């Protein structure tokens, strides 16, 4: 996958192949700039490779996939709509009756702690609040496929933990495929059936780790040896590739 700008081009992804199965919870981890967001956009069909394929639920992705909910890395809210209106945008664009989703929207906003802010505009929210609003927007229509790009990145540890548990519960309560980009190895391992580990820029899929643990994986799951093993494996892959090449901030 290469981004072109005139004569200049940036290779964002090396030879990458990814197959996602129906109902599966897959996480993608990898160093910053390795191509996770690019890969996620290809899964959604928003970016299309000229060669190579992405397969979701045995179908090759070609046009933008529409029966999904997506959380971009930045919140991407409409500045001129309130939080509630932004959430209902998902429904309006799909042509569903708005009134049928109003209560569910308020329920979800309550779940992420935004009930009191439903009539405020995005620029009046804190960074983490905006992110939570965009998560609600992705969930409101009960999509069978959920793509999330670092959805909990701007949240504090406790809120994050809570929302992780809520997400797992939601996923368990009904069939849903989730592709989840995160920087938290804990989160990846605690949530996923498989963790896709990517190599540094220009990235490719380095390894795919299966996480066989019973669910729900509550707070205690961190003590599970499977958790520990998976986390250690991923950390080792990362360490073996190294990260920043620079010499730190101090002057040389």
């Amino acid at each position, binding site marked *: 996958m290469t981004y072109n700008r005139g004569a200049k081009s940036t290779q964002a992804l090396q030879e990458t192949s990814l197959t996602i199965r129906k109902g599966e919870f897959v996480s993608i981890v990898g160093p910053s700039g390795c191509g996770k967001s690019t890969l996620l*956009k290809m899964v*959604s069909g*928003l970016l299309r490779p000229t060669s190579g394929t992405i397969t979701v639920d045995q179908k090759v992705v070609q046009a*933008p*996939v*529409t*029966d*999904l909910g*997506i959380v*971009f890395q*930045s919140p*991407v809210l*409409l*500045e*001129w*709509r*309130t939080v509630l209106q932004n959430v209902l*945008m*998902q429904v*309006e*664009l*799909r*042509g569903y009756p708005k009134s049928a989703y109003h209560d569910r929207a308020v329920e979800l906003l309550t779940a992420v702690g935004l009930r009191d802010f439903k009539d*405020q*505009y*995005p*620029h*009046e929210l804190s960074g983490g609040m905006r992110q939570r609003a965009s998560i609600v927007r992705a969930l409101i229509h009960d999509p069978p496929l959920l793509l999330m790009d670092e959805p909990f990145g701007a949240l504090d540890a406790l809120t994050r933990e809570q929302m992780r548990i809520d997400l797992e519960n939601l996923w368990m309560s009904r069939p849903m495929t989730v592709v989840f980009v995160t920087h938290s190895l804990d989160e990846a391992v605690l949530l996923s059936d498989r963790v896709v580990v990517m190599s540094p820029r220009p990235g490719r899929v380095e390894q795919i780790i299966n996480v066989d643990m019973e669910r729900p994986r509550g707070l205690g799951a961190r003590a599970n040896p499977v958790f520990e093993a998976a986390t250690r494996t991923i950390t080792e892959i990362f360490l073996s590739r190294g990260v920043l090449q620079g010499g730190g901030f101090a002057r040389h």
Partner: protein
Amino acid sequence: MSEFAVTSGTWRVPNWLSSAWQRIGGFVVAICAILVIWQAAVTLLSIPEYILPGPRLVLEQWAANLPTLIANGSATASVIFLGYCAAIAVAIPLALSIAFFPVVARTIYPGIVMLQNVPKIAIAPLFIIWFGFGLLPKLLVVFLLAFFPIVVSSIAGFSSINLEIVDFARTTGASAFRIFRKVRLPAALPHVFVGLRIAATVAPTAAVVAEFVASDKGLGYLLLRYNGDLNTAMSFATIITLAIMGVSLYFIIELAERLIVPSRGTASGSATGT
């Protein structure tokens, strides 16, 4: 230690009504100042009436001839209104196709630019020959002058949208039209309104030019007559009537902007907090 509070330091007022009042207040003050200076200049320098009539005289004449001005003004107003609406109806779809179809941008757009640079006033007499004496040539003049500002501004608007928002919209499978209506258009509206405002100030002038060329009514017709009679005071009264109509149109557009353009909930204190 007491609670922190930030005083509102910006001048925006949250609801359009009180804001409109504020504006009208300043406007009235400005107008009064101009009138006083004008009258003073005319009186003190004893400027003859045919060079510059004083505001008192103009207002007297204006009041005395109000029925004529209103009758002719309404004729002009309908030319302005129809031409302006036609301009909007053509300009916005055109801007859309220029913004999104490279072929249109490359072939039609330069033609429009060229057309725009033809002085309509110079060919207006030909319009009569080509299109007869009716409403059509007049509408055409207003249309031609008003539509270009709207096109240029709308192109800027439709091109300036955040692409990730469109990406989101595409994942919903919404039709191009619905994405336009719900996302692209609201995002472009502030820019579109820049063009609508400029066009609003162009339209009355265009209507007068059109009436100069072919009309037996309307403010342009009156102006020709009063100019012919060297009735400068009534010329001014007519011009003022026209200016009032133009300003009304402008503020109607501004009001429409406040009502239609999705606000972001005009906040204060957010990042400036003086």
